[in-house]
């Protein structure tokens, strides 16, 4: 194993460990953790199987093998950002409905209490 592979392996393992610990502490929901665990495993595979990088680079017609990480990470990053933007939008929609419901309910409580005061 080359030195760089060992470092990459330890780093990926560390990332996986952090993700699992975050899930254990309930700071990361399982359903989001899956995606992160998947990315950590992909990194692990890359660190262990050095040839994979070369094979992929060849398939994409990239001369300098490590450069393949740049488009892969970029693509991954964009998809992730998009996913979170969609998530924020759906959350906003839910929060809005909740807030509106609270406003309606609070008004109802206030009006019911006022009615009671007026006719004891």
């Amino acid at each position, binding site marked *: 194993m080359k030195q760089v592979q060992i470092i990459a392996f330890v780093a990926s393992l560390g990332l996986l460990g952090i993700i699992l610990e975050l899930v254990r502490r309930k700071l990361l929901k399982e359903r989001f953790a899956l995606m992160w665990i998947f990315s950590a495993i992909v990194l692990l595979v890359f660190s262990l199987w050095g040839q994979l990088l070369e094979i992929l680079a060849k398939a994409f017609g990239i001369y300098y093998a490590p450069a393949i990480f740049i488009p892969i990470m970029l693509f991954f990053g964009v998809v992730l950002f998009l996913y979170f933007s969609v998530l924020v939008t759906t959350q906003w929609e839910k929060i809005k409905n909740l*807030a509106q419901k609270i*406003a309606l309910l609070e*008004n109802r409580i206030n009006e019911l209490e006022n009615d009671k005061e007026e006719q004891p």
Partner: protein
Amino acid sequence: METKGQKLRAIAIVPAYNEQDTIESVVNEIFRSAPNIAVAVIDDGSRDNTFVRAKKTKARVLRLPFNMGIGAAVQTGFKFAFANGYDIAIQVDGDGQHAPEFIPQMLEIIESGGADVVSGSRFLEKEGYQSSFIRRLGIKFFELVYKILVRMDVTDCTSGFRAFGPNALRVVAENYPDDYPEPEAVIMLHKAGLRFMEIPVIMRDRQGGKTSIRGFKPLHYMIKVSLALIMNKIRKVER
């Protein structure tokens, strides 16, 4: 939902965000101009005394737990109106820009079946507060956008002085845009098959508060809203 002869129940929806200085007079003015309608103030998470001041009036007052923007606030009013069996909802801004004396005319058009939505336009007859030059230029631009997208004549698409009849109220209670609510709603309502009509009104310079379009960057705004309008045009409307 067509009711001929029978009186329709109407409610004015007044969205207010930090409007403690104007809210009471706005509400009282609505009651004076249209004594037969109810008023609901929607406090959009104000940090001042808007809620307390509004409670001093005869209006029904709703308070959002935090600031959510004009679109979500107005929709809260529509939901409230719909849930409480009102037939007509009239949006009147809480900053005193809209002159309530036009409300009876709006109601009459809806009650006689002349339109599903009546919108007050300050540009049909150029009277009263006409807004800044840049903003008027933008509104001219949008006139063109509406002609192209939906072949409608809309002279004042940012007007928040609107009355919604029974059919329209059902739609907007369920589904109301919240990014650029007024311009977007025009297309949404059109796609829902509702009849939109403008009447000339006089708007005043705001008595208090600040514009909801803070740091108004005209070109940026025009691009964003145009995109939103096109999206509304190609989006399916739930009826």
